[in-house]
């Protein structure tokens, strides 16, 4: 699939280069049409890997020289200078364009890396402070329980002391649940700001953010969005976060796949049983037996450097939107994550 696409692009470029060379050949030597080969190089940089760009550039130079050789009209001295200028232009453009795309690639990679580190650090800090906050009352409860048991085991049992211990246990239990309630409050702090959105636009906007990553990983993206879907009432950022999360997981899963045909990310959206139904599927390694239930748990990750937060957050977002999220294994290989969102009609009055 990818190979045919690559070949097609190469053929188009070759056609363009040949066309320029042909015009160069039929025009006078004094007219340096060959300079326009830089257009071919600039297009190639956008479409092809670095080595192929260098090849295209060499091909353009060869074509320019050939067209100089076969041009019949004009002053051959001026023609030679024009050819040299064209060659220098092509070579210079190639060099600069490749340098630029390498720099852009580095910037992308560094930014993604930094974002990852920041995320991991923040979550690590968060987890540590939650653990500390919750463990304090738990420790007190454990101590008080032990003390209470001992007071009761005394002969005669020291009931006033035992009662005090139980009262402390109650207070500390409430304190623990208050801490958790506060955390949940914090998590909900950013209330979703829902607005009416077009499904295709939202999905495409999210996926556009992945273009660089997909290109770099040489992964083919296949998007199928049913025509005429009703608009959805959602928090745009949150839903895009879910889509990105699922897509990034799929890309991670495809990282180890060598088979080019399998390096495809499928994203679908449609209307099923009165609900908007989204799916993101890959043909990676897939999930092991009991991972299906656990992947949505917080702090559970199948990735060595995963925090186990992405899918947990995705689930809370989807559930806050009255949707459902689940995962299924694909028949051949890989996994498909599905989620639904309610398909609301904009004016319910008209329906009745």
């Amino acid at each position: 699939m990818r190979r045919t696409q690559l070949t097609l692009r190469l053929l188009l470029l070759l056609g363009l280069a040949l066309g320029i060379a042909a015009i160069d050949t039929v025009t006078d030597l004094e007219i340096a049409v060959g300079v326009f080969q830089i257009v071919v190089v600039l297009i190639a940089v956008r479409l092809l890997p670095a080595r192929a760009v260098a090849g295209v550039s060499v091909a353009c130079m060869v074509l320019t020289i050939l067209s100089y050789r076969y041009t019949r009209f004009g002053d051959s001295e001026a023609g030679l200078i024009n050819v040299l200028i064209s060659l220098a232009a092509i070579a210079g453009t190639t060099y600069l364009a490749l340098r630029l795309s390498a720099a852009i690639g580095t910037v992308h990679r560094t930014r993604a890396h930094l974002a990852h580190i920041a995320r991991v650090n923040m979550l690590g800090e968060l987890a540590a402070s939650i653990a500390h906050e919750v463990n304090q009352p738990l420790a007190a409860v454990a101590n008080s329980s032990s003390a209470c048991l001992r007071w009761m085991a005394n002969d005669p049992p020291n009931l006033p002391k035992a009662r005090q211990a139980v009262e402390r246990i109650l207070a500390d239990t409430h304190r623990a649940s208050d801490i958790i309630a506060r955390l949940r409050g914090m998590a909900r702090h950013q209330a979703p700001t829902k607005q009416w959105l077009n499904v295709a636009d939202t999905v495409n906007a999210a996926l556009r953010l992945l273009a660089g990553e997909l290109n770099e990983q040489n992964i083919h993206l296949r998007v199928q969005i049913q025509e005429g879907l009703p608009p959805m009432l959602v928090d745009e950022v949150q839903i895009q976060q879910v889509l990105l999360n699922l897509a990034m997981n799929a890309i991670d899963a495809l990282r180890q796949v060598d088979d080019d045909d399998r390096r495809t990310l499928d994203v679908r959206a449609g209307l099923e049983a009165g609900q908007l139904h989204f799916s993101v599927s890959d043909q990676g390694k897939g999930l092991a037996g009991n991972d299906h239930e656990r992947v949505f748990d917080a702090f559970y990750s199948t990735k060595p450097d995963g925090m186990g937060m992405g899918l947990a957050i995705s689930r809370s977002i989807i559930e806050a939107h009255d949707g459902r999220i689940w995962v299924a294994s694909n028949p051949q290989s890989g996994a498909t994550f599905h989620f639904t969102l309610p398909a609301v009609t904009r004016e319910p009055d008209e329906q009745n």
Partner: protein
Amino acid sequence: MSRTDAHDTAEPMVYIVDDDSSVRASLQDLLASVGLASMAFGSAREFMQARLPDAPACLVLDVRMPGVSGLDFQQDMARLNILVPVIFITAHGDIPMSVKAMKAGALEFLTKPFREQDLLDAISLGLDRDQLRRQTAATLDELRRRHGTLNDGEREVMALVVSGLLNKQVAARLGVSEVTVKVRRGALMRKMNADSLATLVKMSEKLKDVDR
């Protein structure tokens, strides 16, 4: 070796330093339920400012506290020559933290919530150790005091006797009569409260260890 010090009879005391008041209260109650006296402090500073009883003790110290952290305080204690055994408790401990604490001489490193028995075992070990340390220190003080009561002649005789010389050799070395050596030796044995030469040698070793 005689034990005449009074410290053994003092009631052992457990100090608790934790910034969380319910952890403090529950720990004090837990210790009370097994008959252990305790004093609780909200910070390392409060602990340092308090008047502490002269008794075998051990310190249950929280790692993460505002102000001086438990680990920092452990370093301060070493610098100030506070020798109370330390048991660390922490609500979230990691391995580097526990390694650091144990290397600095902590007795135990417990993660909250811990099993009461682990804490009680550590406390009992810490109290035993502190008692032993205090006894050793007290014995040494006593030895030094006794050694201080010797006059110069007796001190000279003691030094030579414990190095293995016979009375005759000591007398020759000091240029006094053998009878004088015998008299001084009898007096110093009495003053040092040593019943044999072997005991005296041991005492002199201890005194040397301290001077070193």
